[in-house]
Every structure is written in C-alpha cells, then in structure tokens.
C-alpha cells in the first residue's frame, strides 16, 4: 500500500466510499418506515418502538457518516436522483441476494430486516471497493483513514453536526469529527449499533450511565422470535426474557413496493402519493443543506419527518386495486418544484 496523505486519488476514493456509506445508511430507512407506519395506532407498541429506535439510529448513522465525509473535505450529496434507490432494490452487499422492498409489517419484512443487520463473519476482509458486507466497507474506510494520516482532515469544523442541534429522540449525540480519533469513534458507533460489539448482543455504552442497548440485529430478532433478550443473554442462543406480543393482523394492508406509476393517472390517490414524495424530497433537500454548511437545517427536518408519517398512514388506508390492498408511500425521488414566480 502506498502512503501519501496528499494522494488525491486515494482521498477521492475514500470520499466516494463515505458517500456510498451515506447512501447505504439511508437506503433501508424507507423500508423500516413502511413497516413502522403500517402498524395500527396503539397496537404492537413494543415492535413499533423497536423499529422506530432502529430508524432513529440509522438517521444518526447518516449524520455520523456525513460528519466523517465533511471532516475529510468531502461534500455529502443527498438531494440527487441516484441517492434514493428504486424499491425493491438489491443492496450492494450480501452478494446481491438481499432484496429490500417497501412492505408492511409482517414476518417477511422482519426477516428482511434481520438479513440487513446480520453481523458479519469475523474473518471478512476490510474493503473500500468490491466489498460484500457493509461491515467490510466500514472496516475498509477505517483502514484508509488510519493510513492516510492526520492531514486528510481538511474539512471545516462549522460543517459538523454537533450535539443539541441534531435531535432524534434516541440515545447518544453525534460525534463532531475533526481528527482520526473522533472519526474512528463515529464509525465505531455505527458498527456497534448495527451489529453489536465483539459478537455480543449489545452495543458498547459510549457514555457513562447510558443504558445498555441491544444491537439492531438482536432487537429485530426479538420481534421475529416473540421474546425479549435479557442483558445476560448471548448472541448464539435464543432470548430468555419475557414474551414480546406481536399482532400481525393489526397492520394496514399496504401493497408491496407501492409506486406512483401504478396509480390511475389524474386520480386523487395518485395526487396524494405524489404529495408524499414531495414532502420526502423536501426532507432530503433539508438534510442536504444540513450536511453542507447549514447544520441548523436539521431543525426544519423534524416537522417534515412528522408529516411523512401522517401522509403515509392516510395512503395506507386507501384501497387501490381489487386485491384488498391499499396504497402506500413510494419514496420516489422528486426534483424540487420550480421556484415560485
């Protein structure tokens, strides 16, 4: 491996890898949200809380990746057409086997979530390109950061999203990235929240007194199996805690992988579906501004996130087609509306 903190091609590949990580962290969020929103209000409270907590942490992951990318002089890009996958989509890891779609809360959806979050085998090689798992991607990024040296951290500090501004109702604050240590800390949070620490079921607590939390994979496992984990449980054994009740019928019958194109042109439901996508587009533009020098824009993102839910649930109550299923949010990227004259 050649050393050279100033090697622009290498730094460019690192930034590309981080941009790709940003896309990957985002790509599963619409899938999780469809499952979450489809749960009938007031039912499946524990399962809904689990999915919601994972979504909040994925959003934190986006912020952390953006912070690392900004720290190495990159410019996160969120508001372009290629950022949002077309669902159902093959995630570019797990050998192309992993297809993620927009589905209502169901055993199949939860199985998909488990596959997304599955911890990687201990011997996977870190790779910045050609990786099979997201864990390899982050390990590859970590190696590059170590190798490229402190001079790679050329980004402006005022582009960092710090604590207090980013509010997501979860635990932990975004790490302000300014050097190798803070970059590694940020990446560590992502990996441990997803897969777990050293093949246990837990994330490591990052702050004194913070409640010990399960890694995402194990949170979803509780829903699939119908029992909670105890703190003392281990990764390769089933959970031994209390029952986690799931009512698979208390779910809005959203059709799989909704798309605007499937809805009758000129129909009201199509207009509502497009309205959802406009809100979603506004949210992405808001995130884009937040990651590119205007961190306070994250405050404006909050009402947009709330609106997404209400618009999605309304769609999920509207029948379309004759199969008893309903419409749903399609999370299709929309370009910004023309500026008002």
């Amino acid at each position, binding site marked *: 491996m050649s050393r050279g903190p100033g090697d622009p091609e290498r730094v460019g590949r690192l930034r590309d890898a981080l941009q790709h990580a940003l896309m990957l962290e985002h790509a599963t969020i619409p899938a999780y949200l469809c499952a979450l929103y489809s749960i009938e209000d*007031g039912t499946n409270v524990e399962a809904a809380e689990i999915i919601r*907590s994972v979504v909040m942490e994925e959003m934190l992951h986006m912020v952390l990746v953006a912070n690392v990318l900004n720290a190495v002089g990159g410019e996160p890009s969120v508001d372009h057409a290629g950022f949002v996958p077309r669902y159902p989509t093959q995630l570019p890891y797990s050998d192309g086997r992993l297809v993620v779609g927009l589905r209502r809360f169901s055993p199949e959806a939860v199985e998909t979530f488990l596959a997304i979050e599955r911890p990687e085998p201990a011997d996977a090689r870190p790779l910045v390109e050609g990786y099979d798992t997201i864990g390899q991607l982050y390990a590859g990024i970590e190696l590059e950061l170590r190798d490229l040296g402190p001079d790679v951290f050329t980004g402006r500090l005022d582009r960092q999203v710090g604590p*207090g501004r980013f509010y997501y*109702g979860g635990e932990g604050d975004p790490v302000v990235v300014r050097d190798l240590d803070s970059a590694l800390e940020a990446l560590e949070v992502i990996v441990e929240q997803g897969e777990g620490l050293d093949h246990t079921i837990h994330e490591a607590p990052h702050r004194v007194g913070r409640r010990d939390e399960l890694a995402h994979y194990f949170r979803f496992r509780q829903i699939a199996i119908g029992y909670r984990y105890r703190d003392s449980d281990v990764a390769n054994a089933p959970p031994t805690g209390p029952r986690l009740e799931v009512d698979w019928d208390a779910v809005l019958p959203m059709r799989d992988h909704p798309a605007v194109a499937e809805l009758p042109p000129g129909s009201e439901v199509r207009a509502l579906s497009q309205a959802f996508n406009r809100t979603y587009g506004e949210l992405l533009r808001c995130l884009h501004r937040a990651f590119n020098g205007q961190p306070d824009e994250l405050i404006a993102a*909050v009402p947009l996130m*709330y609106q997404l839910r209400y618009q999605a649930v309304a769609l999920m109550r509207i029948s379309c087609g004759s199969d008893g299923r309903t419409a749903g949010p399609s999370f299709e990227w929309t370009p910004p509306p023309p500026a008002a004259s």
Partner: protein
Amino acid sequence: MTGVDCDVLVVGAGIAGAILARRLAESGLDVVVLEAGEATGRTWAEYQSNITAMLGSPAKVPNAGWPNSAAAPSPSVLDIRPLSHDGPPGTAGYFVQEGPQPFGSDYLRARGGTTLHWYAHCIRMLPSDFAMKSTYGVGVDWPLTYDDLVPWYAEAEREIGVAADVEDQLRTGTPFPDGYVYPMHKIPPTYLDRWLTERLDGTPVRIGQETYPTGVVPVPGGRNSIPNPQYDGGRGFQPVGAVGRPTAGLRCEGNSSCIPGCPAQAKYNALKTLQLAEAAGARVITQAVASKVLVGSHDEVSGVEYLRWSGDVFPTVVPHTITARRYVLAAHSVENAKLLLMSRAANTSDQVGRNLMDHPFLLSWARTDEPLGVFRGPGSTAGIETLRDGPFRARHSSFRTDIDNWGFQILGSPGSDVAAAVYGDQLFGSALRQRVAYDVQRQLMLGFLLEQLPDPDNRVTIKPGGYTDALGLPRPVVHYDLDAWTREGAAVARDCAVQWFEELGADDLTAYDGPDRPMAAHQQFTWKDRPYCTLGAGHLCGTHRMGHTRTDHVVDPDQRSWDHRNLFVVGAGSMPTIGTSNPTLTLAALACRTAAVMVEELA
C-alpha cells in the same frame, strides 16, 4: 430510627410533594408519600390510557381524561354555575360554592397532581410582588424577598427543566444574576408571536394617565426545547423525556394539548420527579386519603390517619395510621386547608383556609384580517409582560397577558365555528371548508391574569356534619369574591385590549354578557356600570400563608407550622400574595428551599 414508621411522611404526590420526596430520599431518609388519588403514568401504556380518554372526552376541560373517583374527588370546572345574589350555594360536584362569586379553578388529585394538566408557564414573581404592603400600601409583605428565592428559583428551573433565554426575561423587570442561563433555549416563538411582535411590541399603551411600553415577551416554559450548552457552567442540560419511555418527549412536538394533557410528556409533570424519588427509595402509596393529622403531647404531630380506598364509585376503605419524624402536607392549597381544619391543627392564627387567591382570568378576543397560524404549538409561548408592575398597583391590580396560540378554543372553536357555518349559515362543501379556514385562522385571543389581594373572607372552610364526600369527609366550602381593586384591574385590562385591537385593526368581538359571552366564565360582575365575566386560571394560593409571626400566619418562612414544629405545610397555600405569575414555579422554589431545611435538620 425507632418507634416511627418512616423519617418523613409526605401527604400529596404533586410537584411539591415530589420535590420534597426526591430530595429527602436522595439524602438517605426513609420517605413515604400518601396520594389520595389514583396512580397514572408509572408506565407509558398507563399514561397513554389517560391520553386516549382525554382525546375521547367531549369537553376538553383541564381534568379531562385524568383519574377521578368518589373517594378522591377533584373539583371540575363543569360543575361551576353562576351564583345569584342571596341564592343557595352551588353544590354540584365537589366544592360547595357559597359565593358571592363561584371559585373558578380546579386541581387534580392523582399521582403527579395538577402538573399533569398545567400550562407549564414558569414565570418568576417580581421583587415588588413580595413587598406589596411596603411598596404600594395594599396586601401584605412576604417574610422573604425575591433575592432570598433567587437560588431556589434556579433549582426549581432545573428540576422542572425550563426553556427560556434570559435576554428576553430581563424585559419583564425580573432581576437575574449576571450570566444566569436557563437550562434550555426558549421554545421557538409561534408565527402569531412574531406577527404580534411586529405590530405591537414597543407601542405605547395607556393605563390611566401613564403610558407604558407594550412588551411582547416569550414566556418561560416547563417543556423540552433545545438544551443551552452554556447552562451549568458549560456542562449543559439533558432534557428528561417521558416516564417509562425516556426517548419520547425530548422536544415539544406541538401536540397543542398542554391542557388537558401532553401526549409526549415533553411538558414537565411531577411524575418525572416522583420517578427519581422512588429510585432513591421513596415509597408512594396511592388511593390513600389522609383523613386526620394527629396532634399529641407538646403540640407535636404524632401521626397521620389515612384511608386506603378501593372502588371508584362505591369505595370501601381500610384505615391506617402512619408515624414519622417529620410530616409534610403537600396536598395543594384547598386539601391542605381542609385536612388541617378537619384535624383542628396548626390554626391558632385562624388563617388556615383564609386568603384564598386565584388569578381571575379575563378574556378579550378579536378577528384579524390575516391568518395567524393558530391551533399550533403550546397553548401560549409569549405574553405581554411589561404591565405587571407600576405605581397603579396602589389603586388597582396589575395583570399579565397571555397570547393564546389556540384561537378561540376556550369558546369552543373550531367545532363551534363549524356548527355555526353548518347549522346557522347552511354552508356545506368547499364553501364550508373555506369559511371555517378563514374564520378560525383569524382568531386572536388574549387572556388577562388579574391579581387578587389576600382577603380573610376569601376562604376555604368545612362544615362537619354538613356537606361530605363518599368517604364521609367534609367537602371544601368556598366563600369567594373579587374586590374593587381587582375589578378596577379588570376594567384597565379590558381597556388595554381595546387599545391593542385598535392598533391591530382587528375586529373586537369581546362580549361579557349576552349570548356571545364566554359560557365558561361564571364569575359575573359589574364595575362602573359595565359587565365583566372571568374564569379561574387554575391557580390556588394563600390558604396557609407564611409570615414572621404566629399571630397571623400558619407557617414560618421555611413553611414550618408555627404551631407544630415537626409539621411542614408546603405549596402555593404558603404564598402571602399571588402577584401576576403562574404560581407553580414559585411553589416549587419554596419546596426546594424547605427540602434543604429538612435535609439539614434530619440527615
């Protein structure tokens, strides 16, 4: 510890009781809290069941959705009726209203208390509020000054978690120590706040011969906002979320339902402090109505009798007695007074139950010509706060002015607007939709909190053998009126509203009699040939006031009973004057101060 059941017995699991229980338990003392009402909010699901009940209540009054029972009844504003001169007392519900004016406020007997449905305005009293007699020749002086309470206000603001920026608050005339920082930044002002600021802030308003500046100032709120990183010497502040679901409620999310209840628990409620008290070992016993304070030898309190009840409509009870080294009554102004009167305790001053004060709430409302963005956000995020003090207080009450973010909700909007359009104007379809949108969006509602002076004849008393509740305990009998000082204040407040509406070019719709008057405003009076009507603000003060002597005061400046040295009587009842600020922050500060005294003495 021998011979007693616990170190400290606290009656009442509202904010005052919770603050004391937490501090005493954390100092290592064995604390038991008796709560007359039912539990709620021990888990997220338990709390949400009350929220769902609230959403399904047709009348969204403050107690809607919260526990109520025949064994621990709470007063309800729905039971208030106008009283006629020389007519019989109003006996609907829990209070017995002797008049001349009905007492208009309620409170909640439940675990968590009235903070379950408060507005969460956290406003400090002004220095002259503590010295009304020496400054204006009316009312009385406190045995404490504003300066005495400064560190305790800060502690209360931390306990509750108050969102405000000091630069704004200095405009109210409240002194703050240099460099004081609130735990969280102010709640972002609403569109309406900014709309009014642009048009009214700084404009002169006439009161009598003087003009004053109209100051539109954010109101400090006990609800979660963006933490201020400079708080606590740069250590910052961690907002406290919902009990049982700590990731909920970390920011106000705009449920627009502070009253009757905050679904997210972004707004402070005493459950949050009780949670900490219990974590430190305090035991809370609910459905436990204190029925007697026992006084033994040497005028010491020797125990508290209580009734543990079951069955919310036809209760059965099991009596108990509990003993402690110290006793604290924290059941709020009316219940504290009722319990002491029932027990014939702590009352050589004859002031228990007397000097009851509220903030008579006077509404003025108008229609603007532009949409205001109403029915969004907390109930009120700003007020007109520059008229709370002045030489006029020698002649009439002052007031603070709530800017209401919820339009004419208190008059029944938006449902009443829909009804008027549908049944009155026979509208339907898009014409109806546009009419409702147009009318409701232009609703400007101002609410004036008028001061009252302590009056021994404004009182809570009991009639043993007379009116009783399902447990056979006496119901509070209230005698209440608004004096000339307050009525003149109402007239002045009304006149200010007229001036502001004129300045705004808004259509004044205010009516204090006739069919358009607010149906909830049962306090009706005439002043200088004009009709007025007011409601209660939910503030109850004065019934066991503090002072330097036992002659005219129930408790000393530490809220310790003058008559029984092992008894503390805490809460808004200890306040000798009410000022114009919502009393919760002040009663919380006093509770923090009393807790420190007790810890010093006992731990």
